[in-house]
């Protein structure tokens, strides 16, 4: 029971060392390796995911920027269009106004000219009528000079 035997102690020491080495080879090493490997894989996946996320964020930012750019562009185009439309409108209106006034002036000039023409022809007609009438009235008193002087006097008075 309690008899120390050198050989038993030596055997046990040897056995323990063998068991330790065997466990290292068959248990600790493989499991530690597989855990480390899995960690590595997980790290890799994580790194990849992080890279993807960054990329996605970048893309999203780019997209947003593009959308914003498009928005400003749209606004710019609308503003431009509005501006040009306004200009066109103003131009058309101005043109129309100018046209209208031109027409008006032309019409007025024409009317004036016509009026003068009418007046001139009326004058001539009246003069003729007067000459006729005077000729008829004066009758015997021939002498064209007298007629003419009378007429002129009349006209002069009528014109005043």
């Amino acid at each position, binding site marked *: *029971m*309690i008899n*120390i*035997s050198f*050989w*038993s*102690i*030596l*055997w*046990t*020491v040897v*056995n*323990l060392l*063998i*068991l*330790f080495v*065997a*466990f*290292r080879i*068959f*248990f*600790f090493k*493989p*499991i*530690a*390796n*597989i*855990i480390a*490997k*899995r960690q590595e*894989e997980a790290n890799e996946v994580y790194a990849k995911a992080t890279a993807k996320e960054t990329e996605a964020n970048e893309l999203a930012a780019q997209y947003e920027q593009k959308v914003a750019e498009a928005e400003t562009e749209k606004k710019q185009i609308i503003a431009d269009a509005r501006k040009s439309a306004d200009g066109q409108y103003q131009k058309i209106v101005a043109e129309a106004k100018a046209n209208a006034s031109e027409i008006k002036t032309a019409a007025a000039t024409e009317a004036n000219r016509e009026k003068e023409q009418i007046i001139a022809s009326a004058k001539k007609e009246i003069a003729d009528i007067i000459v006729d009438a005077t000729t008829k009235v004066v009758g015997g008193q021939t002498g064209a000079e007298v007629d003419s002087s009378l007429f002129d006097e009349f006209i002069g008075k009528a014109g005043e």
Partner: protein
Amino acid sequence: MTLAEKLVEELNCEEVFRMHIGGYEIPVMESVVVTWIIMAVLILLAIFLTTGLKTQNISKKQAFAELIYEKLNAIVGATLGEEGKAYTGYLVTVLLYIGLSNIIGLFGFKSPTKDVNVTAALALMSIILVEAAGIYQLGVKKWLHKFVEPVAIVTPFNILDVFTRPLSLCMRLFGNVLGAFVIMELLKIVVPPVIPAVFSLYFDLFDGLLQAYVFVFLTSLYIKEAIE
């Protein structure tokens, strides 16, 4: 055969056979043979558990193997700390060996730990590991200086520690296993049918595993102390 004779027979570690290597006659005791059986069981189990390891879609077997690995490392590593990580492998091996040795009595074998030579060898290796770890981690000078800490007057006790620690480790384990065995044998004789089974749970199973843990815990504590 009287009870005493029976007990003594059970307690004695018989010589199984002799080896002739060179000029030496090497006796092989029962405890050594049972140790071989335990080693075979543990190694086969380890090989079985670690075949076909994968990193993904792991089998239940691998999950179990990893669980054991993690738990054992955690149990031993908790006292060892980060610096003593290198020594977990040996301590886990010792934990498994003593644990299985203590409960192998349930399967009809004589526990190797019932042989004082086995516990002496375990304790011897523990103290060699402790001192070696101290020298390796601190260097000879600091290691020697540890003997005069905290004050010079305790030096004799510190030196004594080198011998009492393994002795206490050895005797604690041996005494517990022996005591549990004697009590169980007595119980089997005194109250035969059911009661011994209940006590067996404590003395054979719980105490056996507890003593394995205590042994490893103390060794790791000594290592931690030595490398600080």
